């Protein structure tokens, strides 16, 4: 998979303090599980995302471990509390140890 990955993150631009917000992160990745074979019988190398981490102003608010059973182009959606204005940063790590980072700003009033 070509890196960095293409990603789409969805975070509300504005929120009130203490509001529950929905955060969504989508990454383009084949999530090749390593068990499949190509048309000439060769095993296709395993290539998966292994970790997803979301930091809110540097504090970890969400983390997920991904395995071979996850579909390609995984979408991860979770809720968190809007505490202060700042940046949410998202990191995807893959089985080669490479990572892709995306970020989004939120204004909390």
């Amino acid at each position: 998979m070509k890196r960095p990955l293409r990603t789409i993150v969805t975070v509300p631009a504005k929120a009130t303090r203490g509001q529950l917000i929905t955060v969504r992160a989508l990454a383009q990745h084949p999530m090749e599980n390593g068990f499949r074979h190509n048309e000439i019988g060769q095993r296709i190398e395993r290539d998966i995302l292994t970790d997803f981490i979301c930091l809110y102003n540097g504090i970890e608010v969400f983390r997920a471990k991904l395995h071979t059973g996850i579909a390609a182009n995984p979408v991860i959606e979770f809720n968190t509390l809007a505490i202060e204005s700042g940046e949410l940063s998202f990191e995807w790590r893959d089985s080669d140890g490479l990572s892709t980072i995306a970020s989004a700003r939120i204004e909390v009033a």
Partner: protein
Amino acid sequence: MRFCLYLVLSFLIACFSHALELHQRQSSYINISPQTQAMQDDPTLNPATFWIMDGESLWAQKPSSQSPACSECHGQVITSMKGVAATFPKSVKGRLLNLDGQINHCRTTKQQQTVWPLESKALLSMSVLIANQSKGMPIVANKQPETQMALKTGEALFKQRMGQVNLSCAKCHDDRYGMRLAGSVIPQAHPTGYPIYRLEWQTVGSLQRRLRNCMNAVRAQLFEPDAPEWLHLELYLMWRARGMLIESPGVRP
């Protein structure tokens, strides 16, 4: 008594009639779950958005230092490609081409490049980018005199029984739409969402790939990848869906 018999007979005939009335047509969008519909409708949730992004990069990028990028001839994709996908397949200088064929034609003649293989990521990205510019626009019925023979062949293929299972496209998609096949609702088979993101494929695929799927399912021998039959079928399917709105990139299970 005779009148009752007539009513029953006409009802039976209506049940088994082959033609799909124009007003009865519907996209298979209505058969999919609300979650999948949401995936299709929201670009931040539709995985095919990544292919559109890839297409945008390819659109602006020179394939080599001497060859022009797509954008150098066509300008902005949003304006120049609006409604284009709704008119394919069509005859271009005497050759019947679908959108993929037209892209590859441009690549070999205008850009002096090799063709992108069918189902390659580059070809799908470019074709989904162009198809997306027609989203919400009605499919234009092809009225070119030179395509009418191909359209007839396509219709005949649609109604031709094939494979060990001995089914034609029409047996399921004209006569039995709305019924179930192995738990899934049989759609009317209108190609409004192609190139499509199928959850089963976990990637974007072309209409030809979907047709191969059906032909494998009825255990028919596939046409050669470059056989004209694929184009004739595609032409007929687009004509059959004339006036329906393009949804590309669609999402289906």
